[in-house]
């Protein structure tokens, strides 16, 4: 059946493909720290983060990458954290950020 083409496209280089299965180790992180699911990308964690000030690391972006199965930089990004815990004081959704970060820094990819 013919339809109007609206010309919507995706640039293949940048696209997030949700058809891809999330790796088992990532599912495991969510299982070990289920509070990760509570994140609403409000950005409070990044607003207080001293490490982020120097390195550009933002926890909510790590979290988003994890949600979307974008794992290539996860471990490196997490390593920028110095586990001071300020973000956890600020987080309105009670995400156990430090534990999530610890799990991510210990990722052993198969």
């Amino acid at each position: 059946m013919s339809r109007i083409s609206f010309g919507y496209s995706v640039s293949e280089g940048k696209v997030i493909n949700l058809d891809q299965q999330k790796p088992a180790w990532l599912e495991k992180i969510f299982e070990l720290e289920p509070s990760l699911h509570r994140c609403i990308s409000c950005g409070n964690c990044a607003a207080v983060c001293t490490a982020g000030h120097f390195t550009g690391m933002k926890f909510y972006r790590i979290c988003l990458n994890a949600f979307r199965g974008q794992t290539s930089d996860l471990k490196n990004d997490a390593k920028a954290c110095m586990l001071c815990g300020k973000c956890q004081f600020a987080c309105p959704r009670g995400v156990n950020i430090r534990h999530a970060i610890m799990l991510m820094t210990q990722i052993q990819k198969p």
Partner: protein
Amino acid sequence: MQQPTVSIIGAGPAGLNAAISLAKMEIRVNLFEKQVKPGGQLSHWHTLFPDMYDAKTLLKSTINEISHPHIKLYTTVNIRQIKRQNNQWIISSDGNQEFISDAVIITSGFNLFDATKKEEYGYGIYPQVITSLELEQMFNGRREWPFSKDIEAPKAGFVHCVGSRDTKCGNNWCSKVCCVKAVKQAIEFKKQFPKAEVSCFYMDLRMFGKGYEELYMKAQVDFNIQFIRGRLSEASPSNGNKVHVKAEDTLMNRPLKQNLDMLVLMVGMTPAIWLNQHAERIDFEKPKFKQGFINPVENYQSTIYQNTPGVFAAGTCKGPASLIDVIQDAKATAFEVFAYLKKEKQNVEILEKTT
């Protein structure tokens, strides 16, 4: 002295509740419904947000209450005009039946947005693309799932704001209930298919009511539903009976694509009628592009329609609202009608009976 009569136009949740309240105050009611059965849009829902309350139970108990000696229900009667005559209103139907009453409550409700108008989502073309109404029918077994029974882990997407917040459709308003309805439906779907993967494509999550935000957190934490901020741009056919969707993930700042077994369009609310007001009569017409909902006299006198004595409006004919809001509004309107009759008609009989 004759007891006053009130005509209520539309037997959805608003009309039913207004009728029940007026009957309790000893007022006689003519309740008109153009459909075969009363209940309005409530008869379409399987379970209600935010508490998963069984919609049939609520519908049944409400309908039981209208079998009251003061309430006369007329079904398959479509009202098309009301006319003022000596302090009263004459209500006329499509079949030219006429009814006289002392006051009128318009409770004509809403229509669901016609999803074929958003051509880019392919509703009516791809069988995997369904509306939120059709999903409710799948939940209560009145409609088949759009994917094969062999699929154990179906992938489903929910598109928020279909026909709402959209100047292209002439509908600038937010339909208020569809965000939480999507969350409710996503949870219900996961309960039926625990291995399913579910994403909600939203622009803002508007969780304004009691228990809504909590339900959203439950969807995230207990049901692992993914929330993606970005309006779905397009759906197109894909291999293996799937539909391919594209969106900009605005939080990730990247485009996103996915193949789905089911795509649910959260269709918004549009007005069911437009009131064309003349000097001594009001015609009920089909709304035109951009015409919007009925305007009450002002926001703080929201039960009275314009400056027309004896004409009131309740429920979603005035704009999107949840059932809880509609029921409260209907009860408040019934009281205003009672106060109007008491003042206008100096009707001793109602006073004597209720005090």
